[in-house]
């Protein structure tokens, strides 16, 4: 049994009491908590409807953390522990609707501590409850490997799905412009393993589910994010939540004859790239008007290098500067012969899939390319 900051397997098992509701309306009719070294499973339960005498026997495997990997392991263990006439059941702190569907398909029952679950005896009993919110936050060391700096690991795995060692993976992330330490890469890989996105064997790392990984990255990209806002004149920084991936933006008319590529590149500490939205033509057929959007790490510095005048009507600008602290914006960019730094294919897809209907259409084409390349 492993401990969790929120709950432990022993406390989870202690809720199994005769007469208590297991998953409404099912009640526990009998209960034996197991714990011996030779015992398979954590508990044996008989459950039934409150107004009927018929009972259904289950063997329960409990896990204090409900990662997809743990749930899959618990399902295997519960099935192995089920004796003749018994049905397998798992218990975790929280079951999402997605996990409940998986359980139902596998004909394994599952309950959580939030009131969700499915109890199934094929042909005889089927009770399902979903929708209760998760009251148990995940306490794993890295809570979200699909967002921010940690997501660079997932991105690199989508570029190359197999790595012999963690060090090789970490080194390639660094060479693609990501700043991630080996322990950070390790934590992200562990989190992805728990989510069944990747598998590890003898130190090698293999991407298992590129399609689901793309969906997760795309979903996280659409969510609002928090930034540390630039310190004000009094030196105060505040964290702000913004609905877009960008901290600030400025449409600009450039001075006549300026070589803006050279101007931006002349500041070694300034990171810049053509945004994914504006890089789309490198990867898909797409016609669009409007100024080119350039993502920069520091808009004040970029404006100082470029000069020009602010343009209140975005359509009339020569370029639009977007300030971002997201390391993914500058990750795996492609520099052409003219020194133009274009967004990578994955970054382009991320931005387009969160865009308007036409952009989403183009995103589909790029998504197919990414999946095709990762499966080669």
């Amino acid at each position, binding site marked *: 049994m492993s401990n969790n900051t929120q709950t432990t397997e022993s406390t989870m098992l202690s809720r199994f009491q005769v007469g208590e509701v297991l998953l409404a309306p099912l009640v526990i009719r009998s209960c034996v908590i197991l714990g011996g070294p030779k015992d398979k499973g954590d508990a044996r339960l008989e459950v039934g409807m409150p107004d009927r005498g018929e009972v259904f026997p289950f063997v329960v495997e409990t896990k204090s953390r409900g990662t997809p990997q743990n749930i899959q392991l618990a399902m295997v263990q519960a099935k192995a522990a089920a004796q003749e006439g018994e049905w397998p059941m798992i218990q975790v702190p929280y079951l999402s609707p997605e996990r409940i569907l998986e359980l139902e398909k596998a004909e394994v029952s599952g309950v959580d501590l939030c009131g969700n679950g499915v109890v199934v005896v094929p042909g005889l009993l089927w009770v399902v409850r979903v929708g209760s919110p998760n009251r148990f936050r995940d306490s794993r060391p890295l809570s979200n490997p699909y967002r921010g700096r940690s997501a660079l690991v997932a991105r690199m795995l989508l570029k190359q799905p197999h790595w012999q060692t963690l060090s090789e993976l970490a080194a390639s992330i660094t060479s693609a412009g990501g700043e991630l330490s080996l322990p950070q890469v390790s934590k992200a890989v562990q989190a992805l393993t728990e989510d069944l996105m990747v598998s590890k064997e003898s130190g090698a790392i293999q991407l298992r589910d590129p399609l689901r990984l793309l969906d997760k990255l795309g979903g996280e990209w659409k969510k609002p994010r928090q930034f540390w806002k630039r310190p004000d004149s009094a030196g105060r920084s505040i964290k702000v939540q913004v609905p877009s991936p960008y901290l600030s933006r400025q449409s600009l008319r450039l001075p006549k004859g300026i070589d803006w590529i050279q101007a931006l590149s002349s500041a070694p500490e300034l990171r810049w790239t053509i945004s994914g939205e504006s890089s789309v033509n490198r990867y898909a057929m797409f016609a669009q*008007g*409007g100024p080119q959007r350039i993502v920069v790490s520091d808009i004040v510095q970029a404006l100082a290098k470029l000069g020009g005048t602010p343009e*209140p*009507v*975005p*359509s*009339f600008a020569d370029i639009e500067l977007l300030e971002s602290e997201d390391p993914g914006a500058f990750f795996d960019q492609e520099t052409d012969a003219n020194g133009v730094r274009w967004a990578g294919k994955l970054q382009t897809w991320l931005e387009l899939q969160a865009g308007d209907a*036409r952009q989403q259409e183009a995103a589909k084409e790029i998504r197919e390319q990414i999946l095709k390349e990762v499966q080669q």
Partner: protein
Amino acid sequence: MSLITIQDEMRPLFGPLLADLFQGRDGGILVAGGYGLFLKQSWLLQNPDLPIVVPISQWRDNTPRVTKDLDLVVGLDVISDAAAHAQVLQTIKKHGFKVSEINARWQFTKELPQARKVIVELHAPFPPEDDSGLVVDGRRVKRKPSLGERGFHARTNPEAIGSALNPFRFQVDGMTVLVPNPITWSIMKLTAADDRWKSANHPDKPEEFRSFSRAQAIKHAQDVCRMVAMVNRDENDATPSVIEALKAKPEFQRAALIVAESFANDDQWASQVLSEYWSDESFAVVRSTLRTWFANIA
């Protein structure tokens, strides 16, 4: 080549008339009103790469619509030119339009089957007081001396101030069309919207009249937005000189006040009724453009 098919039921009626009116003339007659907006939108749909304030692809309602009225703004120099009177009047008559009885010599109508009709109206700004070749008579601007039935009048439209400044020129089906500069056009449409909105809220007016006025106010306010949305970079870059020429005029100042009181904030009537027609981002750009043009005037 555009893939968009634009149904312009008025083109067979207005197209040849406009082509003949513009024949041999370099300016002097502008197409304003709803049909001017329609022609410009049709042209932009055929030129989708031209940057405008809000690309038409981003409009929630980007279907061009035609109206049965053709509002022409006639230059004061045309009105004072006797030869132009003959050409304009002959052209209008040639295309089957007759002088309207109730608005004689500045409104012309053409009867169509099934009791329908189309209308052409001639408008003009107030002439300068020192212009000895023109006279204002009630709602009309007339040539002096009068040409009688050989001439036309124009309805005084004070909001058409500056119509001679930087008109925008484009071609539709080989026909050169001129429309007013965005500042003049805004003043005309903002004032029309405000007048109608005031009528719509007049407690002494019957409900039917108020309801009609409200619909008209919304239409004119939406025309303001469409007009602003269709302004291109060259037109926008030319606005400072037009503003400089007009900013002291009461018509400009009233328009600035209308922007400040009806379009500037979310809780004002125009903002409220128009927001459903535009995305937040597009509407913000339109309002920001209006505020830039009419800033710090009111």
